[in-house]
């Protein structure tokens, strides 16, 4: 009997951690094949890319806690990246009348505002009309995409990629924070860290955070116990939108250009990272540390596969399978928990 219990425990452990085991095995294999994978340049690269993708995942995490999701995230990143790149540039193609780059803080506030506005539309429709977030964010995704395309047609730009960014913008984001063994760690790693701390405080130490988890696990119960459900939902989506705005601001300078495809499919990576990191579609379950781990693991596996020169087409299939497995594990964990 005891032996059977032990076997069951081991089985549980293996199945609940199947994703981590596969990723660990893959990392071992990649390191054997390409030892430079564990070199400092590669590790710094993985950490920087993790930092770049963290804010959007932190935003989407809140929507998932509410048993929702947000598929407009990637396009909002694209729009805010285009806005940043068009205002903080040396060649004013979108606004031919401008001659000097706009002040950095102003543009940052502007893109955060744009993100919050889209988030408000999402959150209001979800909270007021009880629409499923999939439908609402699908439509805002398309609307925002249209806005990006029209924005890029403005002035004399004619839909082209925006580049030639202002030096102060680029150095503010991609400038060297410090160097490890001659490899520069960009400044946006620090910004990402600050955002993570802010989000941790919001999720764990504020009434709003507690309300978010209450609404996520049981909307009616939260309502009965005096939580303003509508305001909570709207604020979660707005907060997410602000995170996308910041991601767009960072991404414009990080990639050194912005076009209509900037931010495409970012939401898929972010949702996958959240689910891997234990933010459950069941609702009301999730931790900031889990999101950080999820984004990091996903980045490790994809940087590793890139090191092995695995074709990008195959990476999409792998990503899809990872999401499915993560969901299956997510459900299993919920069902076996007592």
């Amino acid at each position, binding site marked *: 009997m005891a032996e059977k219990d032990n076997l069951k425990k081991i*089985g549980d452990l293996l*199945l609940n951690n*199947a994703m981590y085991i*596969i990723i660990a095995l*893959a990392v071992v294999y990649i390191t054997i094949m*390409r030892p*430079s994978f564990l070199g400092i340049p590669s590790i710094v690269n993985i950490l920087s890319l993790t930092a770049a993708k963290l804010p959007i995942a932190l935003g989407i995490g809140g929507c998932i806690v509410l*048993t929702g*999701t947000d598929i407009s995230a990637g396009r909002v990143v694209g729009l805010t990246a285009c806005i940043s790149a068009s205002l903080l540039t040396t060649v004013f193609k979108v606004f031919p009348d401008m001659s000097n780059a706009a002040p950095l803080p102003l543009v940052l506030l502007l893109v955060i505002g744009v993100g919050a506005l889209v988030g408000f539309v999402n959150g209001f429709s979800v909270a007021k009309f009880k629409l499923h977030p999939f439908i609402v964010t699908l439509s805002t995704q398309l609307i925002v995409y249209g806005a990006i395309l029209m924005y890029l047609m403005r002035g004399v730009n004619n839909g*082209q*990629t925006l*580049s030639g960014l202002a030096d102060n913008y680029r150095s503010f984001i991609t400038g060297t924070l410090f160097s490890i063994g001659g490899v520069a760690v960009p400044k946006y790693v620090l910004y990402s860290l600050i955002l993570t701390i802010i989000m941790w405080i919001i999720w764990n130490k504020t009434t709003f955070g507690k309300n978010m988890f209450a609404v*996520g696990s049981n909307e009616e119960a939260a309502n009965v116990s005096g939580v303003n459900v509508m305001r909570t939902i709207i604020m979660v989506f707005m907060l997410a939108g602000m995170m996308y705005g910041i991601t767009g601001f960072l991404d414009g300078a990080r990639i050194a250009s912005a076009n209509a495809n900037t931010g495409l499919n970012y939401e898929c990576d972010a949702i996958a990272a959240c689910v891997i990191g234990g933010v*459950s*579609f*069941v*609702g*009301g379950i999730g931790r900031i540390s889990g999101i950080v781990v999820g984004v990091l693991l996903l980045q490790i596996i994809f940087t590793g*596969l*890139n*090191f*092995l*020169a*695995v*074709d*990008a087409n*195959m*990476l999409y*299939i*792998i990503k899809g*399978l*990872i999401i*499915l*497995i993560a969901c*299956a*594990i997510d*459900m*299993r964990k*919920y*069902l*076996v*928990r007592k």
Partner: protein
Amino acid sequence: MNTTEQQKQDQKNTAPQRQLRGLYSKVNISVKSLNIIIVVLAAALILCMAVGVSNAGFTVQFDSLGGTTVESQKRQYGELLEAPSPPTREGYSFDGWYLDINTTRPWNLEKDTVTESMTLYAGWHIL
């Protein structure tokens, strides 16, 4: 085993499974089937990675933008490209390969290494 323990045991065996909620609220699946699904999907994932690794290599295509055709090359991560014989085009002189179609970011064949599948574009000067 006394009665209460017996009852507990019975309850454990007959108790209905927890109901999933949230996005999964319509899902009706047993832990057993989930176990099978996880194992099968994990095997599929490993298989995909294995197939990906065995076909490893990034394809670099050369778009000569109206010039003579240049064959694509397959390279592993971090390798240099083999310098292709320069394409020709009537009325133009070739001035190197570029990462973008607007020929603003040049590709240095002796220094730049391949890190993804991509297309390089020919730069042309009017003669």
